[in-house]
């Protein structure tokens, strides 16, 4: 009897296990097929608090949860999100003297925890970012903001220090989202870095909430049931946001194997992409925004002998770079580069040679530096010879005041970037400059970890290369990145966007002037002037105007490639073709 029952029991157990296993597999795969969206970003986000990280990957990942008052659509037009309409001069939202802007908030928005979204949260987001102890990465959006005030629960009045012709900096675009006061009120200032729970699981108004956040790895989102359009939108109930890997395998995962639905920033040599797209599983989508692959020229001395003073800006110029601040050197470095060969050979239709840091929109694009499009090695050599920077010890490398022109040139690990490095190294060797190349894993390089010596902010190298861009269509806050007060250093926790550590009062004056100038043409002239200063002073050497290249699986619908805001800006509208 006992034996019999044991047999019965074990049989039952086996049946339960088998049925259970199949049941789980069955439901999981049904979900996988239908309503789970798999996104692959080969740089993994390290936080969702965009005020603590200026990285594009963090901004995009956060845009599923946190929303601004208005976004830019795929054509660069403003679309209200948490506001009822875009304030303009015509509808009275912007005052006649251009010093205030009034946002009317929607009254049907609740946070994902069910509490109502009010003007107070908007005010808090301003206080949060502008707290001087935070070192907010997005502080440039709040330039000239004197006060943000909640007129009533659903009206926000922003007052600027002077006339603000383009008042859509604060709370517009994925870079300037609204945080919930209730959640973050104890995380202000220097405490914000340690608020892990809050930074990983921010309460937002967007279509998704974070279910699990594994920094530098994977984020799992589930649908926000308090979202304003729920349950009609979003279509996808789960989003797996996988980070890591490299651009090439990300492209493969969408275009060749179809494991993922969407992959971002496919900086892969174009012939490879083309061959992958031929499989017919996915489509390459691209758009030209403001992205420019550029060389950042360190204005400070990165010599390891300096210890804590490495790449630290000193206002008195005592820590200036030994040779990269010499006009002959940075001009020669730029002249030696054949940008057209780089664009054609490596980028194909996804990149164009450029001589500007600010290549778009068209009215802001300077034509004053276009001579750089033609490579001129002889001219570069002559320039260096004239400046007396010649090879004195016969080793083939020029010296300036006894310091040999040896350059440590770093960038992120990416086959295409390593090829760019190899090309530039060869051209520079032809003008007597010795280049040491270094590549750093992208998640470290762009990771922003203040403890790592290899981040782009610390810039422990002479020259580094990456792409930068800005969201939206107005370059004012972007250009203000390179003002003196934005220089990263140990006192700011290495936050700040003036990576090259350039400081010129003339440039700061232009930044200020632009903030006060209303007329669009005057603003364009100022932007061009700033762009020319950056290029002609050798703070940056622009290389390629890059199209944003992403890939989507063919059955993913509703994707609108957006180069002015987060690429995932309209994720609530994404669906899967059946």
């Amino acid at each position, binding site marked *: 009897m006992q034996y019999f029952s044991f047999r019965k029991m074990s049989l039952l157990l086996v049946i339960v296990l088998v049925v259970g296993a199949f049941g789980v597999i069955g439901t999981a795969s049904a979900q996988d097929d239908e309503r789970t969206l798999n996104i692959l970003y080969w740089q993994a986000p390290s936080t969702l608090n965009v005020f603590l990280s200026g990285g594009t990957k963090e901004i995009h990942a956060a845009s599923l949860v946190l929303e601004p008052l208005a976004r830019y659509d795929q054509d660069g037009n403003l679309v209200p999100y948490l506001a009822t309409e875009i304030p303009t001069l015509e509808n009275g939202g912007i005052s006649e003297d251009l010093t205030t802007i009034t946002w009317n908030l929607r009254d049907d928005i609740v946070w994902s925890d069910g509490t109502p979204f009010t003007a107070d949260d908007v005010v808090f987001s301003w206080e949060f970012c502008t707290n001087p102890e935070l070192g907010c990465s997005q502080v440039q959006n709040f330039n000239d903001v004197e006060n943000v005030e909640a007129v009533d629960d659903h009206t926000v009045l922003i007052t600027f220090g002077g006339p603000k012709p383009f008042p859509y900096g604060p709370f517009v675009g994925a870079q300037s989202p609204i945080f919930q006061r209730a959640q973050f009120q104890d995380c202000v200032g220097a405490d914000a870095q340690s608020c892990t729970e809050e930074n990983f699981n921010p309460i937002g108004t967007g279509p998704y909430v974070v279910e699990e956040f594994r920094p530098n790895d994977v984020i799992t989102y589930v649908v926000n049931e308090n979202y304003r359009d729920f349950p009609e939108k979003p279509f996808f109930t789960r989003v797996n946001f996988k980070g890591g890997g490299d651009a090439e395998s990300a492209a493969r995962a969408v275009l060749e194997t179809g494991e993922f639905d969407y992959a971002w920033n496919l900086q892969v040599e174009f012939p490879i992409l083309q061959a992958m797209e031929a499989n017919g599983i996915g489509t390459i989508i691209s758009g030209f925004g403001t992205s420019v692959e550029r060389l950042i020229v360190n204005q400070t001395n990165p010599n390891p002998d300096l210890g804590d003073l490495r790449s630290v800006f000193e206002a008195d110029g005592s820590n200036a770079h030994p040779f990269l601040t010499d006009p002959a050197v940075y001009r020669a470095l730029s002249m030696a580069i054949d940008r057209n060969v780089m664009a054609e050979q490596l980028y194909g239709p996804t990149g164009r040679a450029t001589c500007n840091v600010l290549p778009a929109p068209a009215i802001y694009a300077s034509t004053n530096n276009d001579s750089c499009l033609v490579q001129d090695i002889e001219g570069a050599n002559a320039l260096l010879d004239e400046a007396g920077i010649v090879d004195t010890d016969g080793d083939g490398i020029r010296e300036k005041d006894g310091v040999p022109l040896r350059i440590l040139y770093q960038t992120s690990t990416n086959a295409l970037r390593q090829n760019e490095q190899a*090309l530039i190294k060869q051209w520079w060797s032809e003008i007597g400059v010795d280049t040491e190349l270094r590549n750093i894993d992208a998640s470290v390089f762009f990771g922003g970890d203040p403890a790592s010596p290899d981040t782009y902010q610390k810039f422990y190298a002479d020259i580094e290369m990456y792409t930068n861009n800005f969201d939206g269509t107005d370059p004012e806050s972007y250009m203000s990145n390179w003002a003196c007060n934005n220089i990263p250093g140990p006192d700011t926790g290495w936050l700040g966007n003036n990576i090259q550590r350039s400081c010129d009062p003339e440039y700061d004056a232009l930044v200020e002037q632009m903030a006060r100038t209303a007329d669009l043409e005057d603003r364009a002239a100022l932007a061009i002037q700033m762009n020319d200063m950056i290029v002609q002073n050798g703070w940056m050497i622009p290389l390629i105007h890059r199209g944003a290249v992403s890939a989507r699986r063919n059955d993913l619908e509703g994707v609108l490639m957006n180069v002015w805001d987060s690429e995932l800006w309209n994720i609530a509208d994404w669906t899967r073709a059946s």
Partner: protein
Amino acid sequence: MATVAKSKPIKLDDVEPEMLKSNSLWSDAWRQFRKHKLAMIAVFVLFFIVAGVIIGPFFWTVDPEHIEITESYSGMTTIHPFGTDSLGRDTLARVMFGGRVSLAIGISAMLIAMFLGTLVGLLAGYYRSLDNILMRITDMFLSLPILPLLLVITLLFRDSLRKIFGPEMGIFILTVTIIGALGWMPTARLVRGEVLAVKGQEFVLAARSIGSPDYRILFGHILRNVFSPVIVAATFSIASAIITEAALSFLGLGFPPDFPTWGRLLFDGKDFLTITPALVIWPGLFISLTVLCVNFIGDGLRDALDPKMRK
């Protein structure tokens, strides 16, 4: 006594002439080794590869770093027998240059690992008092994950070594030291086991009874008798060092990106697998062949040096 006297004394003339030649350990081993067909083939292939990467660049004088954009993605032609990469750099020149580095890393890391491993094994096996502590240290090292450790150490010491030795040499020393310093444990265990077996034998007792000091017993008597497993372990250790360096380069770490090693060539080439497979095939083939050959030679040596396995 009488029976002994009766037996005919052996005269030297009666012995077959070849038996007169004294047989040293090495000549015996060589005779045995030659019977191992795979090992013999491996010796020739490895010799060919080593000669190729050492002597090759003197005949094939193309600069491995020279970029010729117009020649990019060239197939296997007479100008570029192994093809070119996306920048038109010659793959043959790069494979030869990369081979020098990879082989140099393999051999230097092996020497370090063998030195450390043998020393620890000898001491642990011979001195009972040291045995426990040394073997626990060995266990501890065995449990260290090599790649993460390499990453951390690279980060910590890269700048100081770069300053002293320059970027390439600095990374070379770093890589070799770490791979070597983390590869001695299997050898140490092996040697300790052998020492334990050997030190109980009569000749060690004899040496001790005539008052030989410890170091002479250790290095003069015991070491000689445990040498064959060390040689075998050495070959395997070369292979694993080459593979570790390849893994490091494959992760995009280690040497500067323009400094070709076999692992780096593989890493750079993998994206182009569908366009020009030659970029991956050649370095991949040489890594596999070298490691395979070294392993076969090790296999052959083990058979040859072990008297019990001799036929």
